[in-house]
Structure formats: C-alpha cells, structure tokens
C-alpha cells in the first residue's frame, strides 16, 4: 500500500477535522472528494507531514507520517491549488530550483527541468519570465515542479481550477497519462466530479471528518444503489410515497421523468409491484448510468 492510514483523529481546538479515518490506497489515481469542511485539506496536510495526528497512525510510501516527514516530502510531489511562482525567474530555473530543493544535484536538476517542461508542454516557453505566463501555463508549471524530482506519489490540489475547457482537458490528459503509464500514484483533491471520474479509478469521499465511502468508482456505484429513469401515467403521489418508504430516493426532472435511486438490496421488480398496487402505468423504464455526482450526492446526503 502506498498510503495507509489507521484511525486518524485530528482536531482544530474544539472542531473535529478528522474522526477515525481509515484509508488504504495502492496503485493508480485516486480522487479525494468531499464538501467544504469535510477534512480533505487536513488529510492532505497529514499525508504531507505538516500536521501530526492526535491519534492513529499511518504510512506514506512506507514512511511513518509522524516521524519521517522529510522522507515523505522527498518522495512525493505536490501541486498546490493557488498560483505559485517566484517573480523574476523563468520556468526552467524555477523547476530546477525546486528539484534542487528536493535534494537533486544542481546539474541533474537543471537537465531534468528541461525534460519535465517538455513533458508538460512548456518546452517552447521555458525561458519566458513566469509573470508573463497564462493561467493554463502556470498550472502546467506547477505540475512540472511537482514532477521534477520524479516522485512516486503525486498530490494534486484542484488541478483544473481556473482553466478553460481546452486547458482543462489537456491537464486531465496529462494526469491520466502520469497515473496510468508512469508508475506514479496520483491523489487528486477536487470539487469537479467529472474530472475525478475521468482521471481516477478509485475515490475516497470524506464527510464530516469521516470516510463516507472509498473504493473502486465503478464498484461503488454498482454496490451502493441502482438508478432507474421512469415515466408514469396517472396520479403518482402514492407511488412516490411507497417507493420512498422502501428506501428509494426519488428525484423528479423537468421533463416529467423520475430518477429513482434504489438501494442495492432491492430488486427492480419492486418498482413494478408498487406501480401495480398504486394503479400506475409505467410508460418508460430505463436503467440509467450512474455518475460519480450521483454517488457523491447519495453518500454525502446533498442534492
């Protein structure tokens, strides 16, 4: 396991930030999801070794998060959410500088900076001053500095924020390439659910300091519930109430289609039986593809 946390507790004064978090991440890309205040940032701080948990233990890449923070920081790359640069520098010096700060020899850091900048698509503009970079270029630069020392694990904090659609797609393609082909595990904290769904195979959903769900995205979507789209004819008040009584969550869309989230333990036949009892005609019945958004809404309990 690259990241392993057991019963992690952390409080900011009287506010509980993490409450018994257990986590196990191995290869590939993993998305870290959760509403504001769920504990995502605190979890990243603990993984980077900035905060020491009050209770519990954990290892990142085999290093103890309480005792071996320096070794962790040497082996992980971090791409922060905010724009970060050093005024007056060009990209190649900037990237090499942070390679050197990670412990790379100066000459090798410089050579590696060129390679990484070409990889992220900044090869042609690597000698331009950073102040003149566009938002998308700054984003790529942050990725380059996170990759320069060839980390085994990459923490990406909102990697696609403030990007136009094309820039966003390009960054997502890079992340996918890194996580799928380069033996680098990626942990992405993001609010943009389609980004997580596109790049990650695993997801950890945090809510109120606890892990609400974690695992393979596809498996989670299947296990937790099934989603059906239904169109009915007749007075459906009783039908809806009966479905809710059985534990289904029902959403009505503007085009008169009902989205029914069925718990895993119920069969779709139940819907027909309820419809029969309530004297409702089902005119349209489709098993819908569930999205991560649906899973997130269901897990966290928000629409």
């Amino acid at each position: 396991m690259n990241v392993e946390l057991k019963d992690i507790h952390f409080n900011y004064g009287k506010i509980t930030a993490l409450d018994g978090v257990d986590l196990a991440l191995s290869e590939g890309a993993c998305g870290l999801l959760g509403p504001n205040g769920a504990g995502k940032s605190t979890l990243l701080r603990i993984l980077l070794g900035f905060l020491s948990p009050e209770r519990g233990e954990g290892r990142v890449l085999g290093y103890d998060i309480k005792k071996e923070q320096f070794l962790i920081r040497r082996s992980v790359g971090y791409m922060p959410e905010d724009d970060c640069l050093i005024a007056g520098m060009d990209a190649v010096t900037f990237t090499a500088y942070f390679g050197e700060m990670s412990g790379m020899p100066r000459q090798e850091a410089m050579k590696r900076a060129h390679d990484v900048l070409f990889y992220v698509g900044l090869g042609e503009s690597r000698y331009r001053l950073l102040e003149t970079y566009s938002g998308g270029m700054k984003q790529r630069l942050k990725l380059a500095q996170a990759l320069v020392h060839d980390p085994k694990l990459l923490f990406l904090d909102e990697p696609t924020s403030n990007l136009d659609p094309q820039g966003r797609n390009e960054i997502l393609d890079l992340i996918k390439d890194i996580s799928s082909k380069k033996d680098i595990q990626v942990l992405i904290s993001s609010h943009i659910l389609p980004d997580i769904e596109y790049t990650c195979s695993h997801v950890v959903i945090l809510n109120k300091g606890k892990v609400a769900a974690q695992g393979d995205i596809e498996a989670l979507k299947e296990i937790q519930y099934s989603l059906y789209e239904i169109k009915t004819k007749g007075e459906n008040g009783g039908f809806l109430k009966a479905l809710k009584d059985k534990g289904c969550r029902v959403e009505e869309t503007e085009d008169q289609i009902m989205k029914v989230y069925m718990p895993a333990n119920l069969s779709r036949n139940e819907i027909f039986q309820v419809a029969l009892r309530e004297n409702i005609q089902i005119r349209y019945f489709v098993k819908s593809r569930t999205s991560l958004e649906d899973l997130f809404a269901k897990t966290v309990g928000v629409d």
Partner: protein
Amino acid sequence: MVISEQGYVHWQGTFIERRFPWWPITRLGIRLAFKRKFFKFVFSISLLPAVMFSTGVYISERLDDFQFMLKGQDRLLEVNPAFFKSYFTSEPLLFLMVMIMVLAGAGLICDDLKYNSLQLYFSRPLRKRDYVLGKMATVFFFLLILTLVPGLLFVLLKLIFAGSFKFLANYPWIPVSVIAFSLLVTLFFAFYTLLVSSLSKNRRYVSILLFLVYIFSNVFFGIFYSIFHNPYFCLLSIQCDIQQVGAAFFRQSPHYDVPWIYSFLVLAAICCLSAFVLKRKIRGVEVVK
C-alpha cells in the same frame, strides 16, 4: 489530444544530503538581486566608502608625498581604532546599507507571501530555520561585502603598506572587533529586513517601510533630543544605536552619554521581535489551504 512534446522519463539519479540546505535559497536571492540594473548601480556606489577609506590607508603611509593635499590635517588619516569606527558607523555607509536592503532584501519573504511560494518550499524536505537562514544569508552576503570585507582589507592594506606588524602589535584586538561588529550589524540588518519583509505582500510597501523606519527613527530622536536635551532619546534611533555599539566595539567614547549596552539591548530586542514574527508568519502548515 497529444500535448506532450516528449514522453515522461523517470529520473535515475540519487538524492543528496546537503550540508547547507539553505544555500540554494541564498544563491537565488543573490542572483535575483543582481538581475536588477538599479541594484547593480547602487551596490557599486555603496563600495565607494570602502574605496575611499582604502585610499586613506594608503595615504596614511605616504604622508610625505601627500602633504600638499593634507595641509596639516594628517591626524585624520591616522589608521587607528577611531579610523575603523568612523568607517563602520559612518552615516553614508549605514544609509547605503539600508538602500541595499531595500533593493535586495525587501522582496525576500514578501514576494514568497505574494506569490504563494511558501507552500512549494515547505512541500520539500526543508526546515523553517533553513528557509529563514537562506533568506538571511542573502542579506549577509551583501552587507558583509560592505562591512567585513573592507574592514579586513583595511587591516591587510595597512600591514602591506607599512611593511611591518606594528599596527597589529599596537591593536591586536582590531581584527576581532572588525569581525564581531560586522557580524553584529549585519545580523541586525538581516533580522530587520526579514521582519519588515514578512509584514506585507507588497514589495513596494516593504521597501518604503524599511526606509522610513530607519529614517524616521532618526528624525524622532532629533526632535525629542532638541526639545528635551536628554541623550537617552538616542535609543529611539537605529542609526544612533549602531553608532553607540560601534564606538564600544572599537573602544572609543560613545557620541552620546548613554551606556552602549542599552543600545545593544534595543538592537537585540528588534532581533527578538523579528524572530518571533518570522516564527508566526512563516508556517509550513499553510502549505495546504
């Protein structure tokens, strides 16, 4: 969509343990300062006092050749502790040091705060003290060139031009005083620069503040001294405090009738305040927001 111009290649090298992890930060600070043309100009100007005093050392050994210039004022060119004191505590030198701090030191921390680069530093295996040391060493580099290097150069030139060790025999403590006072004044200015630099995210404000605090501390002293005629108001002035301590280091009588240790304590208090503020402002935990 293919956007990479070349594929990702793993790095095959090994990490090294640096004896001085702060050195890359210092090197960068020096490099960025020298990128500015105005800084280069001011730095060159700030070497002029050292050149003038070096010339003074030379003339002091060739008094007969320069009598037509000195016209009986050769007492001024005697190389003794007072000569060193007047170099190290001269107003032009101290002013030029402040100018160097404004141009090379103002952005040291404030730019990192403005551009959020602290989080990049502390996501590396870097301690807070190494970060501060790296920034301080940048100020040290420039200020020691204006203090320690000329101070030792004067001693060396004196020995070379005199052709004997008489000067060292008379004042064996001078090199130690030069080193100690250079380090003290540089340490103070480094703390002062970093303190002010950490107070704002705007380099312009920091530059103005660095300059104004130094100037106005002197102006306030002048105002209060002229009203109350109490020499203890010299403690308000950074410049006077440095001059009082400088006089003590070179075994000269201080300009104001105030124990030099008070001035020393004022400078030490500013350093302590700076350390306290830096500890609070530079926080690795802010790496992740």
